[in-house]
């Protein structure tokens, strides 16, 4: 089970299906071999990469008549040379018809109201293979629908007992929260808590259910599949970069997101999404989203037009600049690459400051400098599913990097990868580990030093569970591993990262992933949201103020203006609210955050799901962020920044290259940023692309990013087609000051929190509350 593999290295078998000769690796499943040859065999219980069930009998075919007396299930039959198969005979058709008829026997047929209606495998099979009449005339056995958790609902009469949900939860998720009670016709899918679920709430079971038996709290009875637009974009929560298809519908507010899934299995994540990707899009639908700009008048934030608000910002910024005041700019690790690049360009060229920073959750500068000249050592999210050996150092991937955990878990299950877990806690992935080494809390960098060859470091990391000898043995094992992938948490910084890279350099084919917390943490670092680093980690001529520096400047009354884009410094970045009394504060945000509440101007921005651009996940995979719709009254941060610059009297084509290059200035005469449009036009022409005509077109800036940011010269065709493409660490700053000293603020997310965004998701809050109240119940017993 499980390790059916891909038939690597197996001899081919020649078989005949419906008179057609087909060839496939001996030992492949008949159902797969047929599918690859374009012959469809209907199935319910079969699901690729899950254990075989053979429960539904929908896939029966005639094999090697007359030797085999009965029809065989194609989903459990492995092929062998010379096999003769019939899939289209009268007998097979009758059998399929009978299966559908029996399934429909007690099926409620509430298709008109069922969530699955229109995309139900039972509907489709009935249409294609079923009979139009039923011989079943007894009353149907009805049961009430049950709610098992804030996320999962179960309607048992609709269940066709394919056990996909049980297997996906057990095998792919390793949660095992679903089971089957009783037997035969009275079999029932049951949750582990008796009447409720105690699980990771990922919704995998719901999406894998071929019918509408399992439904989700957020989607049930809200709409029909054909009433939505389906837009595939990237999850805005953690740093792993799952692709998700949003189901959106127009609403009075402009748009409403109803669903997130990845049923088409495109992207890095196959059909995986955690609760955040699948359900926590709900923050975007909140009633309290800001939808009108606010300007403080007589001490009160007052709704005004965009024109008025942007002019107020432009005028004040121009004034501060003129009078030589100090600017501060805070970006967000959830911004797109284009927004981050534009923000730093605006700060540096328009405001004339290097005082720009963001919430950093990993030491990427140290990472790229450790990998300088060795770009092939950067691991990808796909590697985590394919490589034969993995070392996880620190953190709890199940909570903080759900996709990475999924990739690793299923790599172990399906490809027998060897997993080594080094952690101070017995994290869940220990269950998949070939070896688990426990270290005292906070000694991750000691592990890196020891692995890199510092034998004296072993004293600090040895424990009762993992002795010094065991450590030496483990180091040897890791050294001899092939294509080892190392993923480390933010516990490693600076020297720790240099050490782990040094160790990786000594292991043949080893790759490294540096784990950060937010959807575009890696991207905004690459784009230079640092006071001392420009895009591509090039050192700035003169370092500006970082978060702490800006906060101190504000404290001393020396910060003239602060532009905050998608961050909440008063709430979570250590800014005292009253320190900003003498600062002109402009906030671009979705909500009236603690910082927005004390701002002078608040500009309502679009969420990542209402924005176009690109994200770079924590392992450097670049993906397209596609706008699913517009929320009335908001604007993407990109557009807002361009409008502010314009209000300051800046020629916006110096910020965002647009137009066909008619001025032919080529930038020789007026500073670094001028002539950008011309250079862009030359570039676009060479690429066979058209000139951009709008200053609000983020793609125009992506052209520039591709030209100027090392490692981003990816295949645009691939990217635009919706694939993940690899950025590289190539060409980046070779040697950064070793003692740069990063001050990281990791989010320490659980499955049910999402950094600064989680508090706005009802679904995450209700799951968290639900679990808390259960803990209290248990404690009170």
């Amino acid at each position, binding site marked *: 089970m499980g390790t059916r593999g891909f038939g690597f290295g197996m001899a081919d078998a020649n078989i005949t299906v419906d008179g057609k000769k087909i060839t496939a690796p001996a030992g492949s499943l008949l159902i797969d071999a047929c599918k690859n040859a374009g012959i469809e065999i209907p199935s319910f219980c079969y699901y690729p990469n899950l254990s075989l069930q053979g429960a539904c009998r929908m896939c029966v075919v005639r094999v090697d008549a007359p030797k085999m007396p009965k029809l065989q299930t194609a989903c459990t039959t492995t092929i062998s040379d010379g096999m003769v198969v019939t899939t289209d005979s009268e007998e097979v058709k009758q059998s399929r018809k009978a299966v559908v008829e029996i399934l429909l026997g007690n099926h409620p047929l509430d298709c008109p109201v069922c969530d699955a209606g229109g995309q139900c495998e039972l509907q489709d099979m009935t249409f294609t293979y079923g009979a139009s009449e039923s011989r079943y005339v007894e009353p149907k056995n009805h049961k009430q629908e049950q709610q098992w958790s804030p996320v999962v609902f179960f309607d048992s009469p609709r269940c066709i007992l394919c056990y996909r949900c049980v297997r996906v939860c057990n095998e792919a998720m390793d949660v095992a929260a679903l089971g089957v009670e009783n037997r035969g016709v009275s079999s029932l899918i049951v949750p*582990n808590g008796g009447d409720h679920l105690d699980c990771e709430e990922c919704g995998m079971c719901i999406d894998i259910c071929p019918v509408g038996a399992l439904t989700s709290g957020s989607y049930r009875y809200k709409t029909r599949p054909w009433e939505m637009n389906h837009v595939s974009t990237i999850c805005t929560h953690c740093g792993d970069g799952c692709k998700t298809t949003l189901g959106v519908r127009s609403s009075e507010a402009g748009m409403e997101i109803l669903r997130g899934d990845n049923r088409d299995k495109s992207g890095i994540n196959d059909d995986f999404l955690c609760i955040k990707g699948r359900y926590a899009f709900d923050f975007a639908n909140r009633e309290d989203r800001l939808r009108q700009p606010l300007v403080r008048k007589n001490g009160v934030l007052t709704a005004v037009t965009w024109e008025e608000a942007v002019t107020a910002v432009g005028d004040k910024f121009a004034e501060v600049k003129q009078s030589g005041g100090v600017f501060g700019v805070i970006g967000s690790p959830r911004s797109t690459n284009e927004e981050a690049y534009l923000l730093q360009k605006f700060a540096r060229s328009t405001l004339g400051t290097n005082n720009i920073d963001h919430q950093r959750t990993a030491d990427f500068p140290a990472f790229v400098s450790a990998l300088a000249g060795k770009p092939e050592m950067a691991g990808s999210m796909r590697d985590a599913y394919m490589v034969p050996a993995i070392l996880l150092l620190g953190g709890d991937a199940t909570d903080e990097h759900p996709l990475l955990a999924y990739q690793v878990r299923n790599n172990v299950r399906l490809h027998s990868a060897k997993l080594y877990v080094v952690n101070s806690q017995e994290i869940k992935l220990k269950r998949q580990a070939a070896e688990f080494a426990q270290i005292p809390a906070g000694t991750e960098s000691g592990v890196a030093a020891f692995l890199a060859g510092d034998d004296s470091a072993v004293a600090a990391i040895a424990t009762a569970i993992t002795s010094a000898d065991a450590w030496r043995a483990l180091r040897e094992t890791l050294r001899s591993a092939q294509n080892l992938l190392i993923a480390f948490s933010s516990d490693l910084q600076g020297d720790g990262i240099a050490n782990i890279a040094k160790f990786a350099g000594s292991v043949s084919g080893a790759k490294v992933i540096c784990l950060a917390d937010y959807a575009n943490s890696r991207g905004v670092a690459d784009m230079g949201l640092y006071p001392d680093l420009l895009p591509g980690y090039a050192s700035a001529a003169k370092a500006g103020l970082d978060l702490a520096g800006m906060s101190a400047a504000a404290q001393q009354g020396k910060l003239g203006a602060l532009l905050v884009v998608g961050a909440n410094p008063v709430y979570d970045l250590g800014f005292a609210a009253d320190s900003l009394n003498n600062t002109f504060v402009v906030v671009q945000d979705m909500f009236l955050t603690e910082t927005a509440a004390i701002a002078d101007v608040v500009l309502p921005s679009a969420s990542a799901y209402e924005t176009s651009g690109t994200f770079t996940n924590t392992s450097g995979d670049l993906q397209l962020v596609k706008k699913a719709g517009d929320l009335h009254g908001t604007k993407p941060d990109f557009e807002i920044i361009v409008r502010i610059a314009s209000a300051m009297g800046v020629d916006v084509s110096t910020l965002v290259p647009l137009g066909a290059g008619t001025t032919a200035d080529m930038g020789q005469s007026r500073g670094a940023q001028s002539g950008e449009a011309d250079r862009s036009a030359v570039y676009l022409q060479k690429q066979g692309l058209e000139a951009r005509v709008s200053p609000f077109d983020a793609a125009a800036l992506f052209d520039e990013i591709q030209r100027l940011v090392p490692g981003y010269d990816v295949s645009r065709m691939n990217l635009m087609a919706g694939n993940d493409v690899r950025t590289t660490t190539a060409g980046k700053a070779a040697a950064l000051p070793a003692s740069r000293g990063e001050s990281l603020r990791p989010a320490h997310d659980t499955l049910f929190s999402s950094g600064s965004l989680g508090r706005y998701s009802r679904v995450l809050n209700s799951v968290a509350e639900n679990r808390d109240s259960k803990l209290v119940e248990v404690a009170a017993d």
Partner: protein
Amino acid sequence: MRFSDAFEARFTEMLTHYPTKRSVLVPTLLFAQDEVGYVSEDVIAELATRLELTTLDVRNVMSYYSMLVTKPRGKYNVQVCTNIACTLKGGDELLSHCAKRLGIGHKGTTADGQFSLEEVECIGACSWAPAIQVNYDFHENLDVPKMDAVLDGYAKK
């Protein structure tokens, strides 16, 4: 939780018979039920821990078998076969007679906890139909008076 020494000895021995621990679940559930009278929550939790399973796993397996019960039943569990051979020879009458005499129905238990009654499928004693089984003992070729004698016998025990 504590089981008898005999149970423990049998459990330890059984583990050696199978390649995986979970394989001993079914017989162990039965032995535990024989000892405790039913499969209690404690039994479920204990076996789950011993065999490295979730309690959900144990429940799933258990609910497959009608011989395993989660509530206490009478000291003597009277199982009356009403499958084809027994029915032809009067199994139904035996069942309704028992129900009347004991004052309980299918899966019921008398107030004094002495008897419970169950209608079961073929118990493999068709040649001597109608047949019943009380706990692990068979009583065959019954009619109503013989049935009464059987029940009297248990009541006196």
